[in-house]
């Protein structure tokens, strides 16, 4: 009886492991497709506009310093993730 139960559990575990491997691969394919669509649909559109605008902005830099804008002054500011 115990032996039978062990065999059953083992078969379930094998199925589960197989399903997880399949699901992982399917997830990888799905995410590749979805993220590629996002890259083409979102990044590309903004990318094109960025390239167009940056054509007019190019000038030789003499410094790369910028004002630091993230100093925090209250606990409320510190709660923000941005």
């Amino acid at each position, binding site marked *: 009886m115990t032996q039978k139960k062990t065999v059953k559990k083992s078969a379930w575990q094998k199925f589960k492991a197989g399903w997880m491997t399949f699901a992982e691969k399917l997830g990888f394919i799905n*995410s*590749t497709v979805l*993220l*590629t669509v*996002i*890259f083409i649909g979102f*990044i*590309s559109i*903004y*990318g*094109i506009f*960025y*390239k167009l605008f940056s054509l007019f902005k190019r000038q030789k*830099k*003499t*410094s*790369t*310093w*910028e*004002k*630091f804008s*993230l*100093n*925090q*002054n*209250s*606990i409320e500011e*510190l*709660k*923000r*993730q*941005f």
Partner: protein
Amino acid sequence: MPQSSHYILGLSCFYHDSAACLLKDGEIIAAASEERFTRKKHDENFPEKAINFCLQQANITIKDVDHICFYEKPILKFERLLMTYIRSWPRGLKSFLASMRTWLGQKLWLEHIIKKKLQIKKPIHYCPHHLSHAASAFYTSPFPEANVITIDGVGEWTTTALGNGKNHQLELSKEIKFPHSLGLLYTAFTYYLGFKVNSGEYKVMGLAPYGQPKYCDKIQELITLFDDGSFQLNMKYFAYEYDLRMINKKFIKLFEKPVRQPKDPLTQFHKDIAASLQKVTETAILNLIKASHRHQPATNLCLSGGVALNCVANGKILKETPYQKLYIFPAAGDAGGAVGAALYLHHHILKNPKSNKHTSPYLGPEYSNQEIQNFLDTHKIKYQEFTKTPELAKEIAQHLNHNKVIGLFQGRMEFGPRALGNRSIIADPRQKENWQRVNLKIKFRESFRPFAPSILHEKLTEFYDIETESPYMLLTAPTKKPQDIPATTHVDKSARIQSVTKKQNPTYHQIISAFNELTGCPVIINTSFNVRGEPIVCSYEDAFKCFLRTDMDVLVLNNFIITKEQNAKEKIKENFILEEFAAD
């Protein structure tokens, strides 16, 4: 009724070197990197074990913690990634797919993950990455007022920042933004020279003295230094904005040699490249530091961020810039961000006064003699017990004098990448062959890697040309007597020094003093207690396994001395599972 204590937990994780730190009423009572507990080098996962250690150290539960502060602002980092992909379009799809999987699956849900793991409902605080670095340096320094500079790979948008700290207040005034980064420039060359990114940078620094700076002109093609201390990278040679690689074909064409593979031999070309990179990096750092002094004159300087671990450059700061005092936090990399985030909240936001005491680097776990004795007895390991430290120190000195290599495990573990005498491998520096012996037979690492000396603070200037103490092994200086201590003198006659005071580490000071009394040499070799690819040992069991895995002769576990001679190695080995660590 006594007022209850105020606790702040600082966290850094999900990039590399995750860590936790606990403050009790503003004092750091515990800090540790997760890698030490999980035995996975540079572990980036949620620091569950490090947090548990911190809470146990304070004898509290997570419910007693008043604030939790994370070391960066994740949404700003996500914004930087998206903006960089837009800027790099039409390139970047491969990198976009890889990074978005991690972000959408984990990093965007950071608050939820932290709350779930800790089973809490209170809000999480987020300290900007470079403020975390700056705070870790300024608030642990002995200075009431100082200029603060952070130089890193990248955190949110910032790669370099400068500002000023005064009493409890800390403000950064200027920043250089991604992609212009000294840290990423160094990392790009680390990749080109065949070492692991975000891990092997210190190997490039160790390789540099073997070469000649022949390629500075070519490296200057990659970076422009401006008079105001800022710099700009020539991004046409780099790929890290849009690819999983650091550099592109133009970079390889510029240097006319392909990327070195980890198993390939290191040629003179690689050594010359390392030397050239080190020279250009030093010029850029010193240019930046001099400019910071012109921007806001000050006596004291605090330095932090991954680039602050470049001890060769650090060693030149006091000689070549107007600053008179320098402080570098021992965990200057991302692990130290956990400490900085907690300290920033405590001092700057909650307006608690700054203490001007030196912060101890010994913030990790320690183990009692009873625990160790039980372990040794259980495994039938033969040992000698010393109840008095002077006797223990004398015995260790005798072993060193007999040219034995010793694993030294005592007291609280160090926080930061350097072993400072509590989790160290020590040996006699007078024997030149110890350089190769410890590298190849004990550490199983590259033969070119140098060893650091630990020296009695009282004898520091007798042996080294240095104007300040170097308690955290973060400064390099020329050796005055290279012939006396050849195993700790690099090929360019320099050394990365740890000066040891009685106050900082009394037992370690006593060991070096005993060696000095016996031999007249106040210096010993000090290298981290681990093998290549392994995190530094944390527990006595890790230490004992490392002892078995290598040709180390003697192991000191607190008050106990264990020798290979007394214990049949193979027989004891059967009782332990000795993990293999992938070479880094």
